[in-house]
């Protein structure tokens, strides 16, 4: 059991990092970004292409991929501020579904069923814990995801820019009238999310399947984690991501392993029911 729990740190780290970004974007921009992991996966593909076409070594190709992640974020962010700045949360979220479909279409053309050697961000030896090797990259990712969650929350509460971002999320039009650069900040948050998603996906890529759709759908697990934080608390979301990874890891080799895909849905349904329990009881009374 210990081995399986520790193995859960690998997917858990990815879910945690993605969950922090989901909450950040929901809180700051009013959008549930369903295209988040697809953004990171497509940018990660660029590292593969840069190795193949430009002959870059792992370091520069990784930097290029992260820059691509930022660029993809900027492009999608510009589309959002240009056409959907004042749209409802529902509409913006629906737009990210279109983005997801588009990104999968492009990514599926790049990863077409062959085997690939993705640059490994942390190719060093695994850390031995209770007799099980845990990839050093996954350990770092888990720690960084939690620090990121804490850092972003502190940043939003204590800095001037953080205050501007909060103002923008609460009253975007008023914030704009007060001189806050709403469009620039929106695009910046999208770019930041692109960078984080790229790094998150690249950490797990060397030991995961290289088919594009499963990488794009990592966001489903991260959504479960974000809901654990009630789409508000990034630290809980990050910890939730790690826990979902561990839960998935325990279920996968067990007798009910064939239902592992259901793990995020179970978590999402449970949280939704728990979250709205008072409303239901109030309604009933």
């Amino acid at each position, binding site marked *: 059991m*210990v*081995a*399986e729990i*520790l*193995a*859960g740190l*690998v*997917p858990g780290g990815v879910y945690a990092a993605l969950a922090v970004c989901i909450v950040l974007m929901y809180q700051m921009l009013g959008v549930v970004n369903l295209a988040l992991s697809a953004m990171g996966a497509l940018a990660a593909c660029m590292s593969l292409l840069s190795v193949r076409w430009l002959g870059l070594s792992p370091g520069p190709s990784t930097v290029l991929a992260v820059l691509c992640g930022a660029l993809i974020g900027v492009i999608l962010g510009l*589309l959002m501020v240009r*056409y959907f700045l004042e749209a409802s949360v529902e509409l913006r979220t629906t737009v990210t579904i*279109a*983005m997801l*479909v*588009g990104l*999968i*279409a*492009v990514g*599926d*053309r790049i990863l*077409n*069923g*062959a*085997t*690939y*050697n993705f640059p490994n961000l942390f190719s060093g030896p*695994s850390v*031995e814990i209770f007799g*099980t*090797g*845990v*990839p050093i990259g996954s350990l770092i990712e888990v720690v960084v995801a939690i620090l990121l969650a804490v850092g972003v929350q502190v940043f939003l509460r204590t800095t001037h820019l953080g205050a501007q971002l909060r103002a923008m999320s609460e009253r975007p039009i008023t914030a704009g009238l007060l001189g806050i650069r709403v469009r620039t900040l929106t695009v910046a948050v999208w770019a930041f999310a692109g960078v984080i998603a790229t790094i998150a996906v690249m950490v*797990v890529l*060397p*030991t*995961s*399947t*290289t*088919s594009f*759709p*499963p990488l794009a*759908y990592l966001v489903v697990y991260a959504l479960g984690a974000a809901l654990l934080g009630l789409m508000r608390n990034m630290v809980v979301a990050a910890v939730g991501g790690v826990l979902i990874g561990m839960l*998935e*890891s*325990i279920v*996968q*080799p067990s007798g009910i*392993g*064939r239902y*592992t*895909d259901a793990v995020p849905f179970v978590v999402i349904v449970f949280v939704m029911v728990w979250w709205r329990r008072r409303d239901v009881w109030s309604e009933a009374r």
Partner: protein
Amino acid sequence: MSLFTRPRRTIMRSLAVTGAAAVVLAAAACASSSSSGASGGSSSSGGSNAPIKVAQISTLSGGYPFGDVVPGTQAYFKLINSEGGVDGHQIQFLYGDDKGTASQAGELARLYVLQDHVVGMVGNTSLADCNTNANFYSANSIAVVGGAPEPACFTQANWDPVNAGPYYGKVVQWQYTFDVLKPTHVCEIEQNDPTSIPYYNQLRSWFESQNPGVAAKFTEITYTNDATQNPTPAVAHAKALGCDLVELSTVAPNMVAFIKAAKSVGLDATFITLGSAYDTSVPGTLGSLGDPGALGPNDKGVFVGAELAAVNSANPQVQLMAKTFKADGVQADFWSEIGWVSAATFVDALKEGASHYDITTAKGVLQALQNMTPYNSGFAATNLDFGSGSSHPGNRGSQMLMIKNGTWVVAPGQNDGSFETVDGTLPAASSS
């Protein structure tokens, strides 16, 4: 000025939105590659007689893509057409991606047979076709020669597999595992495929009854959606159980992921996989990790049971394929081999039957196949014979290959051109 500016901006904005939508939709359409190319992909170059129109339905996208079947088939038909075709008829080849879904497989079959009037299906390698279209093919006298990943492909009168399939392949894998590799603890990680799990379990029980002492060595059987999940938990579990050999039934990208994950968790074991993972790019992708001993002293190497001959075999028919693939830029792997061998078997039957049957009709093609002389493809353990029976055991063997010094070589206990075969036929799937 402003009167003109606003409408112009509006127009520009509308154009931008439309353009963006078009880009997304076009990209999405490209993703379903083969469906858009379904009626467009053609290998015909004209001829005095009417072309023989054939089609292929394969799973080309999703978690288990068999994408190289199409270029493998195309390469053979291109070669035949350049030599004048079959009895003066050029072969026209259409193909489509069913994405592993029954609805798409059913739709494509009806499109090709009822609208495009194809006379046969060649190279079909799909997760859905055999289960979905059995009655339709039978009702329309459509013969299929292709790659079989599902039990239903082996039990239809009109469907002839050229590969051993996962079941004969699995038994050969077990035979080689216990006869040559002799592990003490085997962890078997199977696909979470409801259509194949019951028969796998039935076969394992049958194999255990035939080979006393083997049952105790199967330490764990795990089912996983390896294409959608991270393989790390499964290999960590195998390590915790002390397994020194891991058996997989998966495609090459997933096998590579499992072996890399094994390295990351410190699993010291031999890996053996079905022929579905045979891909010439694997040794290069794994690098030194593919060599025996890379994972530890228990690691005897990375093995696959190639259901068709190794692409570097000295057999002249395999050499012709390798040369043609190189000229056409086709990746040589198990899937492109299936396309090539399916097309070769189909064409061989048509050439033989051309003087007896009307090979421009579906019925004539079916008759030609049913009455063909068993075809020695040079790729398979047994001669390929469509025949008139109600089922087709297909090719009943595999050649065990392993990675050594950055390439696939014939594994110990085998010779180039020799295959590990199953004696007789496997037990029929029980109705339960």
